[in-house]
């Protein structure tokens, strides 16, 4: 199917902007770049259900095979390493580990390809804090309360966010400028609703929303929220303020890659409530680095580097009487591992394709684990745009375009205090506007997506064509699990968390939301199960 530039821009950014962009007769200077990252064809080998013969000399024996080198798999490996257990391998399909927390190395700083921050954990999240201590990110504890202190240079530097609306940048994410009285009232009431759930405790004292999600209350008052969409929940409470609805929609797109009317109300409130200790307090601060969560990937990988096998695509997981055989493709070579246990840290929808016998008696409904697609672009800028007004709000860490279906861009040099000269911007676009977002995404070439990205950013920075020297783009076909209604509290996750014939599942999918903390939690949980 051939689409014109205007059609492509319209489908990504809407008709008015596409029309305006196509009106310019002179073709603006266009940067170079390429599509980088995962080889899609590898993933598709899985679906072909081919048979693989392992040559006799290509078998190894290890105690544990971890399938998947994202945060969950690396965390399981990290846990093993910290217990001085080393008889395991981590098989990673791609050339690079880290999954959606991958990062790239650049000048003047490194930059993320996906996840780029971690909210400071509550003091109860002991194992995560252990990791942060080990990474020397902490500065002890606050005397008295015992809350975690993070070193200043790792806490997201102010200004954290700004939003571009009708030609100007404003401080913060919620657009408060020019609010009517009614809009102010609704915003305040929304905050009250959030406060209600922040303070809410069930009969056994559990919070409704907390990280990791395993510690959330399972009582109906809270979990019933999972039965409706966040949009419906807002409607029921009479929230009609456009800017409030935008704010909540942005939150859903940002954290889940879903729109307001696709997200479960439970998941929507989780975003607002799970990081607030008590009502009236600020949300937990963000820990961030130029390379985003790539910093965690690199730390975890350093501990288990001898165990990592990159470009090893697991193609068959065969449970048997002795344990499990795992067969994988390394280039054109077929390799096999005899092991006692497998930690399956790959997205859950891949289980039926990989695990032999899964489809005969499915232990859980793998097709319920649905993912959404994204594309992420890194723009290499030779300099940053000059402010258009003297009093325009300056470049922040996260820069959001109110009128855009994208999530805006994150400035990689921000956290290093580099405020002048070259920088790298990471632009995020979730394909949530239509049902077949994944197919649509892979229909487009680098040039089309780069055009979308530049046209979108040019709303706020017309000089982007001059400043941007290179754009690399990564397409994520299965970027995040989608917490749509009736998924998180439907009982599917609990079933999938049960081991299946020496295969232990560990992936952020099992929480129904894609978060570093959840992946870490499931990695450690599976490692504990395997050891005990």
């Amino acid at each position, binding site marked *: 199917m051939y689409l014109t530039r205007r059609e492509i821009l319209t489908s990504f950014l809407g008709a008015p902007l596409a029309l305006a962009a196509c009106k310019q007769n002179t073709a603006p200077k266009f940067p170079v770049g390429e599509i980088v990252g995962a080889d899609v064809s590898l993933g598709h080998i899985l679906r072909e259900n081919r048979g693989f013969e392992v040559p006799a000399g290509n078998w190894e024996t290890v105690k544990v095979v971890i399938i998947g080198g994202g945060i969950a798999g690396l965390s399981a490996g990290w846990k093993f390493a910290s217990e001085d257990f080393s008889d395991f391998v981590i098989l990673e399909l791609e050339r690079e580990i880290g999954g959606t927390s991958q990062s790239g190395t650049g000048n003047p700083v490194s930059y993320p390809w996906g996840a780029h921050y971690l909210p400071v954990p509550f003091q109860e999240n002991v194992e995560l804090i252990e990791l942060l201590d080990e990474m020397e990110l902490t500065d002890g504890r606050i005397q008295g309360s015992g809350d975690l202190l993070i070193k*200043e*240079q790792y*806490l*997201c*530097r*102010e*200004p*954290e966010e700004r939003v571009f609306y009708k030609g100007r940048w404003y401080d913060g994410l919620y657009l408060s400028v020019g609010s009517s009285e009614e809009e102010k009232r609704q915003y305040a009431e929304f905050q009250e609703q959030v406060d209600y759930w922040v303070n809410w405790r069930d009969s056994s004292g559990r919070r409704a929303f907390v990280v990791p999600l395993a510690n959330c209350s399972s009582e109906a008052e809270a979990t019933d929220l999972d039965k409706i969409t966040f949009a419906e929940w807002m409607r029921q409470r009479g929230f009609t303020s456009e800017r409030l609805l935008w704010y909540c929609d942005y939150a859903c797109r940002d954290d889940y890659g879903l729109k307001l009317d696709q997200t479960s109300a439970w998941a929507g409130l989780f975003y607002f409530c799970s990081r607030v200790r008590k009502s009236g307090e600020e949300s937990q*601060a963000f820990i961030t680095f130029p390379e985003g969560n790539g910093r965690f990937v690199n730390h975890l990988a350093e501990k288990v580097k001898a165990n990592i096998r990159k470009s090893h695509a697991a193609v068959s997981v065969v449970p048997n009487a002795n344990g499990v055989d795992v067969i994988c493709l390394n280039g054109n070579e077929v390799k096999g591992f005899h092991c006692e246990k497998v930690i399956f840290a790959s997205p859950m929808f891949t289980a039926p394709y990989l695990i032999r016998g899964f489809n005969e008696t499915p232990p859980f409904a793998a097709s319920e684990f649905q993912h959404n697609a994204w594309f992420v672009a890194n723009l290499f800028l030779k300099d940053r745009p000059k402010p258009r007004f003297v009093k325009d709000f*300056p470049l922040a860490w996260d820069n959001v375009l109110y009128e855009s279906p994208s999530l805006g861009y994150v400035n990689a040099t921000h956290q*290093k*205090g*580099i*405020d*002048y*000269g070259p920088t790298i911007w990471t632009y995020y676009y979730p394909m949530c506007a239509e049902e077949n977002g994944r197919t649509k995404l892979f229909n487009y070439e680098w040039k089309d997506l780069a055009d979308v990205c530049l046209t979108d950013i040019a709303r706020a920075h017309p000089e982007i064509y001059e400043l941007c020297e290179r754009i690399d783009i990564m397409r994520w076909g299965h970027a995040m699990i989608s917490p749509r209604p009736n998924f998180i509290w439907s009982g599917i996750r609990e079933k999938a968390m049960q081991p299946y014939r020496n295969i232990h599942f560990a992936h952020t999918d099992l929480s129904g939301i894609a978060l570093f903390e959840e992946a870490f939690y499931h990695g450690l949980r599976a490692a504990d199960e395997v050891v005990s």
Partner: protein
Amino acid sequence: MKRTPLLFLNVIIIATCGLIYELLAATLSSYVLGDSVTQFSLVIGIYLFAMGIGSWASRFIDKHVAEKFVDIELAVAVLGGFSAPLLFLTFANISYFGIVLYGMIFLIGMLVGLEIPLLMRILKDELDFKDLVSKVLALDYIGALAASLLFPLFLVPKLGLNRTSLLFGMLNAGVALWATWLLEPLIKRNLTILRIKGFAVIVLLLIAFIKADSLTTLAEDGLFMDNIIYAKSSAYQRIVVTKGKTGYALFLNGNLQFNSFDEYRYHEALVHPAFAAYGENPKRVLVLGGGDGLALREILKYKSVENVMLVDLDPGMTGLSKALPALAELNRNAYDDPRVTVTNADAFVWLDNTELEPFDVAIVDFPDPNNFALGKLYTTRFYNLLKTKLKPDAAIVIQCTSPLIARNSYWCIIKTLETAGFTVKPFQATVPSFGVWGYALAKLQPFEAPSKPPAGIELKFLNDKSFVSMFDFPSDTSLPAGEIEINRLDNQALVRYYELEWRRFE
């Protein structure tokens, strides 16, 4: 029509214009290149010499004298009229400025030198030689007197340099146009073309006169009380140097950094308390910010100092302080001192990335924290990074904005330093250009504030008697009663205090 008296009027106007251009060039060059005696002397010398060449060259004009006279008038009108705006636009390029300036003076001088001989030749048929010489030269000198009185008393204060220049260009062009009627019988050809040219020049100058504000580097003349002698946007900021009655002043992004009239108060208070608190023989000194080189000047007074490392963001600023004679004179050529090393970098990033032998004394002289990029230079993180570059007994002074105008901002910086582990002695001094100004003297160990400035150092402001009083805060500038936030990277509390407090005065 009897045209001779009218032609004499022309002589007066021509003479006035000629001297005005000369005065303009001399004034502008003394602003930019400093040393007004040399500049006036050079400009007058070159101008008179060029006039001589012009007079001598007049012999080569044989035919169409009247027509040539009009053409020359028009040329003077254009060159002289646009001289000041053109020189203003050249300020930003110091290396070219001399060439443009002296080239222009020479050309104008030569053309002006042609005017009177030609006019005398035109008039010679109508008067005795004796009469002609006496009248023309007398009127020429009267015009000069008029110009030299008008220039300082009326033109510069009322019109400014650019408008003065353009106004006299118009007068010159007016003379030319008028001459096409007065000398009509003598002009054999091209009369219409000459008139069109004359009109065109007047219109051009008139447009420039009306638009003079935007001509002089972009409407800044209106913003500053004094004349701009340098204006350039570097990669980081807009740098403007002005010259007024009280002296030179430096502005960064429109904010006053110093005025030469009282900057010694600011810089003596910035530098010497740190040396007094350090004690004997400081050797290695770090300066963060302070690209104007004025803190360097004070530091270099200490014979024991072996190394001064200056880290300033903007090569445009440090380069200017070295190259612009007015600034170099003020900082006593500090940048030429072999003890000084300059690094152009953002101090925050530099401190984070650089390994260096620690320093005995550090002087921190950043612009006020009026944006986030500057605010980070006043955070606990910044001071913790600075600590790693200091010897255990090092002393530092930090400029901390005005405790009178921005009381919370001032004490926020003090509290932030204390949180970062420094013992702090807040102090303040009066700098009329700024008002009451605040500083922090700090060390990594507990210490007593020094009681007098270091001995044997030439000082204009500090003395043994008044030194101690800088550490006393009157009630309106002392620590406020309410809670003061600590300035951290992740809250930038200071930028918000500063915004609130200074906005009251905008």
